[in-house]
């Protein structure tokens, strides 16, 4: 278990270093000059150059990378070029908003997806299974920008059930549902596709496994067979998928948050990219990558905790 753990941690660390470099490189090669973007079209070339020097942009790439990283890990994420506020607070505020949206989507859809996946498996190859499987597959094929626009048009513009632009909810159920349901819907559609499919596949396999046969032929009650023998094994891979999806979710919010004008990290990344706001862009993208890596790590750990084979390996 310990070797497994340290291996995963090391791997996560390597991933993060690589990601940080790619993030830095990518935002660096974005078209347009930083000084020119900040000062506007009427500034002289000398003024632009002076600003570039002040921002340290005349140093070699690797030096700048090192400076950025060493500041970043100390919590000094710099100042936004366009908003002139500390990046740390700005990114964190938006990040928290995204977490609220993501958590809402997950909490609502994961139990539903698992239930339907297991239901499909217990009705393997019968009509109910066909309906659930085909629905799940179709949902997988729907990108967020399509579902996002469709639900926006239908629910906000045609029937006016939800606001066109979502904001962060206050802590009350109507406010939460009113503000979060619509932007969460496109994500939920995708997650349902993945998770129900995974739960179905795992459960079909477990239902046909030798240990399930043993459990049934031991004369155990059906609920005991299902809970302790089938689901305990079949949902192992599903847990992994959910954890990975959680990370993916935060990253994929860019589209949805932009469509619904929700003040999350996706929205921030979009604005920062269009405004060439390098410090904000780097920090936000890196944070998303961090969440993604951590959720993958969490997936591996959860899998180990629930799987004695991994847990007890010396």
């Amino acid at each position, binding site marked *: 278990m310990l*070797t497994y753990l340290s291996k995963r941690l090391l791997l996560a660390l390597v991933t993060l270093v690589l990601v940080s470099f790619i993030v830095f490189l990518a935002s660096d090669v974005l078209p347009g000059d930083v000084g020119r973007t900040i000062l506007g079209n009427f500034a002289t070339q000398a003024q632009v150059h002076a600003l570039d020097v002040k921002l340290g942009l005349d140093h070699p790439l690797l030096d700048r990378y090192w400076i950025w990283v060493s500041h970043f890990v100390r919590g000094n994420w710099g100042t936004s070029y366009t908003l002139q506020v500390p990046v740390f607070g700005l990114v964190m505020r938006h990040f928290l908003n995204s977490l609220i949206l993501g958590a809402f989507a997950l909490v609502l859809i994961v139990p539903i997806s698992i239930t339907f996946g297991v239901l499909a498996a217990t009705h393997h190859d019968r009509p109910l299974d066909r309906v659930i499987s085909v629905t799940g597959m179709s949902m997988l094929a729907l990108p967020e920008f399509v579902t996002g626009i469709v639900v926006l048009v239908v629910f906000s513009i045609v029937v006016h059930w939800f606001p066109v632009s979502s904001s962060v909810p206050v802590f009350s159920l109507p406010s939460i549902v009113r503000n979060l349901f619509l932007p969460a819907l496109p994500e939920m559609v995708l997650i349902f596709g993945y998770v129900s499919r995974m739960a179905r596949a795992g459960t079909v396999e477990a239902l046909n*496994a*030798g*240990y399930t*046969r*043993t*459990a*049934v*032929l*031991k*004369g*155990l*009650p059906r609920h*005991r067979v299902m809970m*302790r*023998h089938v689901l*305990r*094994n079949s949902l*192992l891979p599903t847990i992994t998928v959910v954890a990975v999806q959680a990370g993916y979710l935060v990253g994929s919010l860019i589209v949805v948050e932009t469509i619904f004008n929700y003040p999350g990290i996706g929205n921030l990344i979009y604005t920062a990219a269009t405004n060439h706001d390098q410090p904000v862009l780097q920090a936000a993208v890196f944070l998303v990558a961090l969440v993604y890596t951590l959720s993958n790590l969490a997936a591996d750990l959860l899998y180990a905790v*629930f*799987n*004695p*084979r991994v847990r*007890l390996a010396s």
Partner: protein
Amino acid sequence: MSELRSADDVLSVSNLSISYRRRARAMRVVSDVSFSIRRGEAYGLVGESGCGKSTIAMAVMAYLADNALIDGGSIRLLGDEVIGARAADLREWRASRVAMVYQDPGSSLNPTMRVGRQLAEVYRYHDHVSWDAANASALTMFERVQFADPRTILERYPHELSGGQQQRVMIAMALAANPALLILDEPTTGLDATVEAEILDLVEELLRDIGTAALFISHNLAIVSRLCDRVGVLYAGRLVEEGPASEVLHTPHHPYSIGLLNSIPHWGATKDHLRLLPIPGDPPALGQIPSGCAFASRCAIAEDACLAAPPPLAPCSGVHSLSACLRRDDAADLAAVVAKNEAADGPAPVATPVRIGREAVVEVTDVIKRFSAHGTTLTAVSDLSLTLHRGEILGLVGESGSGKTTLARTIAGLYRADGGVVRVGDATTRSRRERASFLQMVFQNPDTALNAKFRVARLLGRSVKRLNPGLSADERQAKVLDVARSVKLQESHLDLLPGALSGGLKQRVAIGRAFTGDPTVVVLDEPASALDVSVQATILNLLVDLQREHDLAYLFISHDLSVVRYLSDRIAVMYLGELVEIGPAESVMRPPHHPYTEVLLSANAAAIAAGRARIRLRGPSPSLANPPSGCRFHTRCPRSLGELCATVAPPMQVADAGHQYRCHIEPSALATLQSLRPDAAAARDAETTTDTDATTTRSTRGHS
């Protein structure tokens, strides 16, 4: 069989017929089967794969696949009908009336639950006791199945147990609720011989003590004859013979049973004086069972009447057996089965030319092979030396983890030795291609060894092209036909994909491919182990014929000592990566021999049937990563001397001309020790005695 049904029956199956539906077509797999098992009786159901024996077991458990359809008949368990029973009744009957032990204990246990909990569940949900009481009962049950340390086993997960321990857990679980009937479906297939022997000892003892009736399903006649009171022989879904075990196995009254018995090398038989007799032809395909006797097309004594309707199972005169053969009472007819099968098969056995002492074709000197994984290094083969001579068959035996496959693969060049020298061929054998045409390998599983997307002609053709680069296209074509003929494939087989061939035919293609370059040496890694016994006989005969014809040397690996003894001129025994014994086959089989060989012999069911003493291994199998000091076998050796064996690596002792074993005990002393066992002393005589009493049918053939 209504006369057999009585109030004392634990299980009575009558006129049971089962089909499987596949693509809207119903395929009959079990036809009109009737049998019953009395209280405390052990009943053996024998047959080859696809004969319907597991389907019958699952029908009794009321756990048939969704596409299975019971066409008729009845299954009564302690008088109550199982077919169509309410789910609540079934739940109650399972475990408490009937319980089952499966073929593969590894996959039959829940990997995410401690085995103690899995056992305790039975008590919890059948006796409705508290978890504490259930756990206490589980501990008692683990003691009954003779775990050395039952308390720690309770806390283990399945993957932390060996195959033998897993099967013990399964047996404990099956017996937990005191069932009236225990179904054992090939419970030892896949286990090592010594573990198999332990499990069978345990089952035998428990059945005797508890008085539970048993339905024992197996393809292994020797095991069935050891454990069962009565035996039923299934062929193509029908019971073709039934009777007391000793009668069915020694004086069979159905041509199929006779054929089955003559397919396996009985204990002591060798290729030089006895040819195996495979049953000609193939069993009918699923769903294509003919209207008459299903065996008629393969039967040497079939007549027109056999094709009209399936003959009923009826008593034979003078014995207790029932047989479904119209000519069941004609002894001369039944004896003719053997003679006619013999005539149909091929050349008679010939006496051995001298095979030992010719030039070496493979020389292995001090070879070491290590594997590293997860920071630990296993030495799978350590300091091993042996020589394979031109034209000889060297049998290699040892249990899983002994390193026999690693050695074979190292010799074949699939692994690079980490130390020592493997010399294959002579000075002219240098390039990979020269080596490949000199030495070829046949693997256990032809399903994975053959590319499923290539037709047989292409599979053979590629190999012909690669190993015979000088040939023209026409010559290559001729060579493919030639090879196909030599492994008894028909020309029509050449156009088929491997998926369309039976297991036996696939293995013939694999063997044919190995022979395309006219090799001098062939390494055979369990080439017939995955096949049914009658098909195994065909393959073994084919291998013997090819060997004689081409003066080949074989390195033949098998876990089945009867087969190795039958085929080999010399036998090498491996234990934990070391060669512990090597010598002429007959010399290795009798004392003095290595104590490990002694244990292997006494674990062999056929040898036990022939009256061998039962000597069992002590303790668990040590890990290759951390082999015991001194003699590697000392932790489990029945002949251990204690301190000396535990500290000093033993020398090679010379028992006989060309027969060496690695032990501290000198040959004369070891011979005395091993002869102290009355039945082991008779080992030399056992060959002749078993020949005469193994099967009387066989004795009609004599030793030509």
